[in-house]
């Protein structure tokens, strides 16, 4: 028996769970050199489109290959309106004076370029949803703790209170399937930047819905950029969103204000941005499945979507 054990242990030492690696080439049907169109329509704006080409997913690095000789034709409600004008390096525009984009207008885009398959897309401009009110409804102090280094190099722990505004904006949802984005800007005569806000409003944490740009923590969402949401929980009602915003010290600052931008966006707009954001966030995560990005560009990639924007300002 002893000899048997030794024999087996000797063989064991020769046998390891050898992992080997083999380079294989898959017959993946790539869709390189397809037209990529990114275009957003908004009433009262100069509407732009960027045209580029897709590349092999295995290409080293990525530098977008812009297409400067594309023809971009646009139709409104079935009637041809005109072509976009090339400005620079694949960046095209069409003045709204020509387009006259209005809510509920249907637009169709056809993009062609020499040697490339023509791509098409369509979208509808959503109705304008005005912000009916925007106001500071409360001010309060939030306790925070942080550590710092004193002049002698020692770590010190500081507990303090910081002031916050509770602000509220109200609008009326039309009762259809609607998609929105919201951004809060801080502005004064020298500065203009996104303000970071937090909220416990369930529209940003509803299960099964997208939560673009928001970071959930214990039911609260914090965002410092444009955030997307749907009307799934308030369809057809007046909706008030309460937001907590750090109370900036405005003493001596000229014309300080918060500006709210509420976009009523098309479904394509919402789907594209939310899936795009998730793919970018998820990149490099070995445990996550890749996120498929929405596109409404037939035969190509990208997005053609519409939105309307309403704003409200709170002077500080």
């Amino acid at each position, binding site marked *: 028996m002893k000899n048997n054990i030794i024999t087996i242990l000797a063989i064991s030492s020769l046998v390891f769970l050898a992992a080997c690696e083999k380079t294989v080439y898959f017959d993946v049907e790539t869709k390189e050199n397809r037209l990529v169109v990114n275009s957003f329509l908004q009433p009262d704006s100069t509407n732009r489109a960027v045209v580029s080409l897709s590349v092999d997913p295995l290409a080293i690095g990525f530098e977008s290959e812009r297409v400067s000789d594309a023809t971009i034709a646009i139709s409104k409600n079935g009637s041809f309106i005109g072509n976009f004008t090339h400005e620079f390096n694949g960046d095209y525009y069409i003045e709204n004076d020509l387009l006259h984009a209005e809510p509920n207008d249907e637009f169709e885009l056809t993009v062609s370029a020499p040697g490339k398959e023509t791509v098409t897309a369509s979208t509808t401009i959503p109705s304008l949803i005005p912000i009916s009110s925007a106001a500071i409804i409360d001010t309060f102090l939030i306790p925070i703790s942080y550590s710092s280094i004193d002049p002698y190099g020692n770590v010190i722990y500081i507990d303090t209170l910081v002031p916050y505004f509770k602000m509220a904006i109200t609008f009326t949802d039309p009762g259809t399937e609607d998609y929105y984005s919201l951004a809060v800007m801080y502005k004064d005569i020298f500065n203009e930047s996104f303000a970071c806000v937090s909220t416990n409003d369930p529209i940003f944490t509803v299960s099964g819905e997208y939560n673009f740009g928001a970071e959930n923590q214990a039911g609260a969402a914090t965002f410092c950029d444009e955030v997307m949401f749907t009307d799934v929980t308030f369809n057809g009602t007046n909706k008030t969103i309460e937001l907590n915003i750090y109370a900036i010290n405005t003493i001596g600052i000229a014309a300080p204000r918060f500006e709210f931008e509420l976009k009523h966006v098309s479904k394509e707009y919402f789907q594209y941005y939310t*899936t795009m954001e998730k793919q970018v966030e998820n990149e490099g995560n070995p445990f996550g499945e890749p996120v498929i990005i929405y596109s409404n560009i037939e035969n190509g990639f990208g997005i053609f979507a519409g939105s309307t924007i309403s704003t409200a300002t709170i002077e500080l």
Partner: protein
Amino acid sequence: MNIKPFALFSCLVFFILLSSNSLFAQSYTISGYVTEKGSGEKLLSATVYNSINFSGTSTNDYGFYSLTLPGDSVIINYSYIGYITQQKKFVLKKDTVLNIALEQSNELKEVVIEGTKSDEQFQEKTQMSTIEIPIEQIKALPAFLGEVDVLKALQLLPGVNGGSEGSSGLFVRGGSPDQNLILLDGVPVYNASHLFGFFSVFNSDAINKVTLVKGGFPARYGGRLSSVVDIRMKEGNMNSYHGEGSIGVIASRLTIEGPIIKDKTSFIISGRRTYLDLITRPIMKSQQDEEGVSGYYFYDLNAKINHKFSDKDRLYISGYFGRDKAYFNYDYQFDETTQRVEDNGIYWGNATAVARWNHMFSNKIFSNLTTTFTDYKFDIYSSVTEVKTDDPDTYFGFDYFSGIYDWSLKYDIDYVPNPKHYIKFGAGVTYHTFEPGATQFESENIQEFEDAFSFGSEKVYASEFDVYVEDDWEVTNKLKINGGLHASGFLVNGIFYKSLQPRISSRYLVNPNLSIKASFSTMTQYIHLLTNSGIGLPTDLWVPATDSVPPQSSIQPALGVAYTLNNQYEFSIEGYYKKMNDIIEYKDGANYFFDGLENWEDKVESGEAWAYGAEFFIQKRTGKLSGWIGYTLSWSNRQFATINLGEKFPYKYDRRHDFEIAGIYKINDHIELSATWIYTSGQPVSLPIAKYEGAGGQTLYAYEGRNGYRMNAYHRLDANVALSKEKKYWTRTWNFGVYNAYSRLNPFFIYQAYDYKTNTNNYRQVSLFPIIPSVSYEFTF
């Protein structure tokens, strides 16, 4: 609770009992146990058959049978595969107790009595989609690194997919691993994997019987959607002491059984441990600093005590305990005044316990009262202790743990009023404690962390109830039906879910060798598994259904044909369709490794799944050459509202073709050859088809949908030769095996990599195991 389902259930039980009793008043009952001669081990599913009037039954999970026949001459045949059939001729004039001990046949050869039909063959059984593999066959098959693995043997059956290379996962008819009810002596085992899925937790030496149910579920089973793997442990030899064991490449095991009180009380105890850590320690030492020690091992311990109070009362107590542990310890001089000890590791494992009391109320009524406990625990820990010469010692420890613990109580009754009916009914309650992930910090003498603190998910408590009744009813000589009803409820956080699950299986004998079978079953599952991998990693977390994540449910109709040729070859063809509702999947971009478990319900999405296909199976269980051939043609798709833009996509374990052969050839009493070959279609994967500029200038990737491409097909040949010899005190067997005999580089996963030589990116396939020889030494005494 809605009273109607339970009222309906009670009426059904009452009606069956009443009707079946009143129809057969002039009969007598033969009852008893069928055991193995010598050891006293119960023979489960042994056939008891009266060859005069062609009435029969089979032993239940405790070896008990009851056969009620008209008072007349009878010829009762007792048969079991691999054992010599016994025949009893007598005139039945009164209720009779006959305990039968069958003798094992030398060559696993069924002895067939000329001119009579001794066995209820598989085409005669009502149940379909059910496969029993003799444990001897499982042990004779080639084994990865010489470690016999029950679940890997099940992967060789049609309708069952093993997932990825080396894994012991089970994906049954498009289902996921959490949808398998894996029972060890009736106790659910929540994570049946060792070594990250490469081995299962079941020690084959301690196992008596393995049954896989893929569909047509009898009403007594509930709580999972896709399969039941019912594993019964041996009970221990009642008459003499015996043992068996094995010394293998990575593990050794030993089983001892015998009487505590002869013919009254027996025990079996079985243990297994790997020694990769011991073998590799010198190598690891040489590669690491002298002060560091790292390693991995797992072990199992099975034990069972069986006590016979009388012919009417028996008590069984059994348990299982198993652990996997990977560790890295480091002990070094940090600076002149500080010695630092680091202790890091991960461990996980199951513990189960069951106490079972069998009581025979009469020769027609057999009862079983069971109380069980099961515990699955997973823990990652890390600690640093600093022993200082100038200051007080400091300690800082981190612990992340999760688990699920169940207590349950069940009462089951088998009632055999006459040969036309075999009624089973019972009820049970399970108390679940979910601990789906908590983190704890502890420290001593560290200013920044003065107090111990913890965060993460809190424990969730839930109660699950079930009640069932089923009747295996021989309607006519040709038509037999197993109909039943399983009712269950689940109470969690003040929410009560309930469901009524009708089940029916039937067979129609076209001729004595050919039958058509059909079944329909509905299942409900109140627990979910949060998994990033789907291959049974210890980090997978069990969570209950909640108000926002409802229970899973399924329906599954199936239709098939069963045919037996020459009493030896069993052929079956089955077609099935399975629709699953409210299965869960992580939302796009979400996973708990990076996001934590806070608000896990917001990170998952409920959806639907469809699986359908056809399975072909040919099995030969006896004779010198035994084994099977299986083929499955199947589709498995899933759909969620937001994942993959709401479009259906192939399940990760969708395999269009799955073909397997398992053969065992016994040349003589000393030499046995075995081989298996498996071929499956490639695994679906998501690969980008283009790279392009996003609206904000980002680099984006386009995909042909989730799982739009397939990896290369998987195929593998394993072989084994077993050389046995009688020694003075024991029988020894040398097993020489080879895994992946032609060293096929099967795909494990694919990743994109940069090739410095060619300055290009390409896809690389990682293959885990080339050809791997193994040797083991087995002994029995």
